[in-house]
């Protein structure tokens, strides 16, 4: 437990709220225990009685969009089994925000404005990483498509990596370390197979309108134009579900009510950002353990 870091964490979370409330986002709380989750091949949900702890608040937040809330945000706990490292905890804090007006480009711009606003707030303050803060304050953030990033940094193309089943390895070993070094970088337009809930690009059917934000080689946020076609979503769920089941991952039944609500959304975009990592970045903490009150090993 590091009291100074906890005070910084509290100040950062206050500033986050201030930004979104100022932009007419409604702060919501949705249930963290759910009967059915989004099937995801590489996320291990933790069971809670016969239900599950959420791996992200995405389902309920999109149902609120469907119910007519035009802009909403939430800061909440999420749970993902077997994830532990100096930037991972099985229980972590997520910030998600969604809006009915806009697509992923708008969201990239808003993310830049949000983090630029935070950076301005802590500029010059002792105990905050001023190098990162000046990085966030840069006016021109980089935008690289996944294809461009692989061409720049990887030994093989995206298509080759996908065909050889080594996309994640190449991304982690060769691409990620270079991203967001001189200025924050949005890596965008992911192969459609890697954006289960993202809308397929209107200009290139091979990619989804999804982006990840990298700052100093660290992945901070994942956003996309939401896929709102329930039939296509159901098909993608089925594919993910097969992959997940093949690995013995349990996630409950297909979230039917979510699919039904999806039909009521015309267009939307949303983003998830790791709050613990945001605090790490702004305070210069080297391990996620430094920015939470207790890590699992200390309980």
């Amino acid at each position, binding site marked *: 437990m590091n009291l100074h870091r906890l005070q910084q964490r509290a100040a950062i979370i206050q500033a986050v709220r201030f930004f979104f409330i100022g932009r007419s986002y409604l702060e919501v709380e949705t249930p963290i225990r759910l009967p059915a989750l989004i099937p995801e091949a*590489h996320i291990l949900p933790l069971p809670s009685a016969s239900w599950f702890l959420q791996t992200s608040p995405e389902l309920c937040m999109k149902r609120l969009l469907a119910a007519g809330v035009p802009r909403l945000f939430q800061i909440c706990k999420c749970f993902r089994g077997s994830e532990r490292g100096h930037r991972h905890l099985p229980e972590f804090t997520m910030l998600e925000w969604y809006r009915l007006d806009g697509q992923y480009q708008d969201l990239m711009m808003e993310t830049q404005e949000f983090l630029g606003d935070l950076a301005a707030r802590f500029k010059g303050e002792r105990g905050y990483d001023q190098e990162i803060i000046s990085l966030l304050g840069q006016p021109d953030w980089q935008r690289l498509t996944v294809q461009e990033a692989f061409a720049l940094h990887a030994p093989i193309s995206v298509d080759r990596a996908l065909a050889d089943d080594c996309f*994640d390895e190449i991304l982690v070993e060769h691409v990620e370390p270079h991203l967001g070094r001189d200025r924050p970088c949005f890596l965008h337009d992911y192969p459609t197979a890697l954006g289960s809930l993202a809308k397929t690009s209107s200009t290139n059917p091979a990619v989804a309108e999804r982006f990840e934000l990298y700052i100093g080689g660290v*992945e901070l946020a994942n956003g996309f134009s939401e896929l709102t076609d329930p039939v296509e979503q159901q098909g993608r769920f089925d594919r993910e579900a097969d992959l997940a089941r093949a690995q013995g991952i349990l996630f409950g039944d297909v979230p039917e009510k979510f699919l039904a609500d999806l039909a009521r959304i015309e267009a939307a975009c949303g983003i998830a950002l790791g709050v613990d990592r945001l605090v790490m970045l702004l305070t210069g903490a080297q391990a996620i353990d430094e920015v939470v009150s207790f890590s699992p090993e200390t309980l």
Partner: protein
Amino acid sequence: MYTSSDLRKGLKIEIDGEPYIITNFEFSKPGKGQSLYRCRLKNMVTGNAFDKTYRSSEKFKKAPLDERKMQFLYNQGDEYHFMDTKSFEQYVILEENLQDVIPFMVDNMEVDVLVFHDNPIGVTLPNFVNLTVTKSDPWVKGDTSGTDTKPVTVETGFELQVPPFVEEGSKIQIDTRTGTYITRVKE
């Protein structure tokens, strides 16, 4: 057996029949991607290192290593003979694998030997050993060179810097990790 989630810095595993130690470890999980366990592995026999990324489904054999107390007996050319002080079994280790310890090792010294599948692969000395100074130039009073140390040679042939008052025939304590003088030892 270990699985990927057991991997961490310092863990010793067996790969292709050889012992490796993880000298660097990072858990990675690109957004929506799979868990990746990135390791830098060092071969504990050859010292060769390489990077390898594992997925969560991998399994690893624990490297069968144990540390035994042995006594250094003698060397014959580049073969160094040791005896297990419990089983009295004798082992030979080649000079090329003892580069770091030879400068501080004298006959009958008790050392820790790392054994892999009954093959000794490394020797760890006590942190401090006492060795006799076999060659030392006498300190000339009034030496104005301004240095406060002088070079001496100890019984193993190792050379180091010591304070001027250390004379030939005296015993000194040396830190085997750094090769530096600690103190003079009274017999």
